[in-house]
């Protein structure tokens, strides 16, 4: 069911004094999580920007119960929490909120373990495509061509396709989302919370500092990622993959917004923007990605 932002209560979920940078996508995303799940949720946060965004005790900049934990263990800590709540007969949404490093790199083993066990948690990868908290170093989820402080001439390797890796875990729910489309993200969180088992949502989170763009464009870049076809929004539920409404609009190549619209706003792609050959390769990659998703959509929806 599509949701409208105006339907939500005007409660302050991000509190004054939180330590997010201007235009921070994580602060935006956390608000949407609370809007979607309400008060019946506990957050588990490993090392990353969101460890800092909470601000200093004795107060917290985020209106959530939170258990902070070391980098590599977010999913497993969440599994333990959920087991405890279950043994107490309580139905609580245990939600991991982890960055791309905490999810795809240092935290991947725990993630894969919890997914394989199908533990009843929601795992959100808030993907700002580099190790932003330590100062913009490349991660396995940094896209090819992007400048980081450890890839000065642009990353050579492609972005690891985590959502597909999670689908391969055969879990009941996998979705992609973008902070540019809060309705879609909230909708997906609600779908996820209604399902028993391991739920994975991969939230694209454009970071003004690390991607080098004006903080006012966070939502816009989050939308352009979808409109250019670079970041397809989809939902994989009950074994069926469905391309989400906002991505469906840009499904056909001629409907897609040119990739340069996305690239040119971001300083991290400055060298890529000057290289038409590389842009062509990137366009091909996008097409290849879409072919793959459409094959999956077809295959999973045709089966009985």
């Amino acid at each position: 069911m599509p949701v409208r932002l105006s339907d939500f209560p005007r409660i302050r979920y991000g509190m004054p004094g939180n330590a997010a940078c201007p235009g921070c996508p994580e602060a935006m995303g956390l608000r949407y999580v609370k809007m979607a799940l309400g008060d019946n949720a506990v957050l588990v946060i490993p090392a990353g920007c969101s460890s800092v965004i909470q601000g200093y005790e004795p107060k917290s900049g985020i209106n959530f119960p939170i258990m902070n934990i070391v980098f590599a263990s977010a999913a497993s800590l969440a599994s333990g929490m959920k087991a405890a709540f279950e043994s107490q007969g309580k139905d609580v949404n245990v939600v991991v909120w982890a960055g791309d490093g905490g999810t795809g790199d240092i935290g991947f083993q725990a993630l894969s373990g919890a997914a394989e066990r199908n533990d009843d948690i929601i795992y959100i990868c808030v993907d700002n495509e580099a190790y932003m908290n330590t100062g913009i170093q490349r991660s396995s989820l940094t896209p090819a061509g992007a400048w980081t402080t450890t890839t000065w001439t642009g990353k050579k390797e492609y972005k690891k396709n985590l959502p597909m890796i999670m689908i391969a875990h055969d879990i009941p729910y996998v979705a992609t989302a973008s902070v540019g489309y809060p309705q879609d993200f909230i909708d997906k969180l609600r779908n996820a919370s209604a399902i028993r088992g391991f739920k994975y949502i991969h939230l694209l989170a454009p970071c003004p500092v690390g991607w080098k763009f004006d903080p006012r464009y966070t939502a816009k870049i989050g939308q352009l990622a979808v409109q250019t076809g670079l970041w397809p929004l989809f939902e994989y539920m009950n074994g069926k993959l469905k391309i989400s409404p906002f991505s469906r609009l840009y499904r056909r190549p001629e409907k897609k917004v040119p990739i340069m619209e996305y690239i040119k706003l971001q300083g991290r792609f400055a060298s890529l923007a000057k290289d038409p050959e590389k842009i062509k390769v990137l366009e091909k990659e996008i097409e290849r990605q879409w072919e793959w998703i459409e094959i999956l959509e077809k295959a999973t929806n045709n089966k009985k």
Partner: protein
Amino acid sequence: MVMKTLTGNFAVAEAVRLARAKVIAAYPITPQTTIVERLSEMIEKGELEAKMVRVESEHSALAATLGAAAAGSRAFTATASHGLLYMHEVLWWTASSRLPVVMAVAARAIGAPWNIHVDHNDIMDQRDTGWIIGIAQENQEVLDMTIQAFRISEDPYIYLPVMIALDGFILTHTVAPVEVPDQKEIDEWLPPRRQAYIVSPETNVVMGNLTSDDDYYMMRYSIQVAQEVAKKIIEEVDLSYGKSFGRSYGGLVECYKCDDADYVMLLMGSWAGDAKEALNVLREKGINVGLARIRFIRPWPSEVLKEKLKNKKGIIVFDRSISFGNVGQLFMETASTLYGMTNMRGVIAGLGGVDVKPEDFVGEVTAFVDDIERGEVYDTIKWLLPPKYRNHKLEVTL
């Protein structure tokens, strides 16, 4: 109460069942594995009402246990050797989060090369983490200590995790008669779960976010205060358990024939049994020796040791571990308490499960006493090499 023949590992499992742990998370590692195998069996047979999280690593095992504790449930895990080392950062996080958790450690050597036999370097490596660390001598004590660990950990003056070590194979895989208390008796003795805070939607607690350096410092200070208080509470718990079940072990240290002794052997773990045998032989030979068996490495029993040992003619410390580049850790700890008060010698023995026999203790103590009779002794490190290498010397001349 029923009498059972149990391995040390099964004694741990019985204790965890009696303590009614609600969440158990563990990853197999020799020689710990049969603890969680037995607990899984208990859960699946309905003997224990608990959730088992079958994690993919030890790092996750302790994290899941911590998560369960944070959510308000009595939680348990077990590991050994490399598993314990892999958990290391989570050990710190657990103690610093002040959440009660109990863990059994089957003390085992660390690689390389691979070695699955007893050694204390794995537990000694965790002394600084804030955990309370106990170590048993035999299987009955393993069961009793594990049950007590829950009460100690959940004491409102403490709220720290507790690690109970049992020597790999020597205890973990060897059967001995063990008195297992009835569930009803334990329910009366062990209070329901208590903890400082729960992270849940009802409490809205945030744990572990940034603090000012001043507050961080004070939280560190509070862990030390809890460790100090734990010294007294561990003794009280030991006495209270003795009152209910007839077995007390002396609190932080078991002082065996210490009071009238001139010399004291200081060590911990299962080989204390062999050392006690040696002690009787030595006494027959006229050497008036006693034995101090460390039951808790953390909190370190400095007051008890000072009181009991400062006027002895000599203390010989047997370490089953070493801090490379310095001395055995137990010697280091003992010297930090007794330095300058008496003659001391540290002996490194039994690393990687090398067998140390009662006659080895007799020989070492006799040599120590002979040396003292010739003059003052302060030997920080002496190697009791394996028998086939006994005349070997590793020396480098530059």
